């Protein structure tokens, strides 16, 4: 081996090791485990073929975790995107104090999810601020607050998630808005187009790639929702997501590694489809900006 090649190999070695040990191995190992009945306590394991996948189809808890995850993704992603766009438009123009508002809107996005989940656990309680405000306008919260109540718990977590994520996507929209040439608006003004017309004919069409990109990355992240559910409801009150299901079956009580791995792979396939889409968009975006 030439010296130059050896140097390259040495410099690359951190990634090669990290990739093999912490990414490729778990990925393959997980696939293999999915076809076994491997559990923490069992001394032995046997091949079970597609049994785990078949049981998953029958498993009500798994089905409702898929349902909850879909509700979560379909409910939060569009709302977050629209609100993020609105906020970006609000702070796009130059005005005194703009930096302050931008920073303020973004702040929830850099706060640890655990902390946010703890804060909202209190705010959602009976007697908590959100509940008190709701009572002021005549909405009576359920007996134990929205969080400890089947039927509202998931939506309460979703609302918090929108609040938490919106500032982050606002920043991405702002970068997209900056890339729209000012001349387009000037030309439109000369031709007598009003603000509304400018928004629908220039801003919105030119933001499409950015909006699409945001939709995809937010979906990928939302499919993996776990922490807020773990902290706020422990998966109770019909809030368990797919990752929560994997965690609960694989890493608590029975430690069913095989079964949980199979469930994780189902989730993996769903997210992989979105990820491929994301990468295609990311490549396009780079040439755009």
């Amino acid at each position, binding site marked *: 081996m030439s010296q130059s090649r050896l140097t390259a190999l040495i410099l690359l070695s951190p990634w090669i090791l990290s990739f093999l040990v912490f990414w490729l191995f778990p990925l393959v190992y997980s696939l293999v*485990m999915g076809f076994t009945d491997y559990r923490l306590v069992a001394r032995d394991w046997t091949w079970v073929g597609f049994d785990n996948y078949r049981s998953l189809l029958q498993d009500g808890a798994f089905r409702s975790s898929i349902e909850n995850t879909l509700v979560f993704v379909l409910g939060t992603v569009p709302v977050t995107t629209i609100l993020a766009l609105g906020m970006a438009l609000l702070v796009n123009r130059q005005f005194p104090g703009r930096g302050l508002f931008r920073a303020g809107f973004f702040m929830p996005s850099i706060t*640890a*999810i655990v*902390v946010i989940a703890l804060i909202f656990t209190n705010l959602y309680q009976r007697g908590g601020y959100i509940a008190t405000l709701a009572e002021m306008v005549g909405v009576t919260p359920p007996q134990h607050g929205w969080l400890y109540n089947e039927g509202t718990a998931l939506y309460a977590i979703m609302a918090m998630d929108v609040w938490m994520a919106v500032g982050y996507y606002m*920043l991405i929209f702002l970068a997209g808005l900056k890339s729209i040439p000012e001349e387009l608006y000037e030309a439109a003004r000369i031709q007598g187009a009003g603000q509304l017309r400018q928004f629908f004919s220039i801003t919105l069409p030119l933001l499409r790639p950015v909006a699409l990109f945001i939709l995809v990355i937010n979906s990928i992240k939302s499919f993996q929702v776990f922490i807020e559910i773990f902290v706020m409801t422990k998966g109770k009150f019909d809030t368990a997501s797919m990752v929560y299901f994997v965690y609960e079956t694989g890493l608590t009580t029975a430690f069913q590694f095989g079964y949980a791995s199979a469930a994780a792979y189902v989730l993996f396939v769903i997210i992989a489809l979105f990820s491929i889409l994301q990468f295609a968009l990311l490549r396009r975006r780079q040439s755009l900006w």
Partner: protein
Amino acid sequence: MVRTIIRAAGRYLVLGVVLVIMLFPLAWMFRVAFMSPGSSIALGSLFTGDFTLGNFTDLFVSGSIGRYLFNSAFVAAVVTLGNIIFCFMVAYVLARRAGFWMKAFFATVVLVLMIPAHILIVPLYVLMLKTRMYDTYWALILPWLVYPIGIFLVKQYLEAIPPSMEEAARIDGAGEARILLTVVMPLCKPALAVLAIQAFFTNWNSFLFPFIFVSREELRTLPVGLAHYQGQQAIDWQHLMAGSAVAVLPILVLFVFLQRQIVSGITAGGIKQ
């Protein structure tokens, strides 16, 4: 004239309402953190309630938050440092060399960017058990020393810089290590700063993996410690929020100083958690 004033007022009104919604929960956390345990946290007492540092002294003196804080800082610092060094090494080779193998290596980076880490909790947990890394600092640090997004960021940045400075140094007879450290690394500073911030923030706030890889109390990071504390029976909100404030404050301070790098990291296609 009057119309412009009304318009501006309307704009600030909307902005103000949104700002209150976005900041109220965090402000609430900081306020409750300074109220004495057992006192009312109902509406109104936010303004009339007392103001004490007692919760913080309790947490640090008789609680374990000092230990959690140390763990969070130590792990995040090591991971950040590791990422600066390792991502730089890897990105340099990928940016400056061509050929089939380089393409293949870069493909693995891209591949990993598309893998949702949360689906790997079971195999990684088993790996940590079998390698006896479970319940050690190794489990908290080793898997995150080379973030693929970091390699991606630095590689993109390096590719935009022509290699003329390195070539000049090479002609002057400088060795490869010296070129890397004294010529290329300083050029990459802006990209490395963005990477460092992302690595630090991601790690500081991370919960799932530190939570499943560690069961000993001495190894808990702040988010893990807070979640365990909440899991106990009756929640003592004043202390819990004081602990939360300890977890949030360093990030807020960093944010104030490093806003520009954070924003450019996000718009470069970065990650948060």
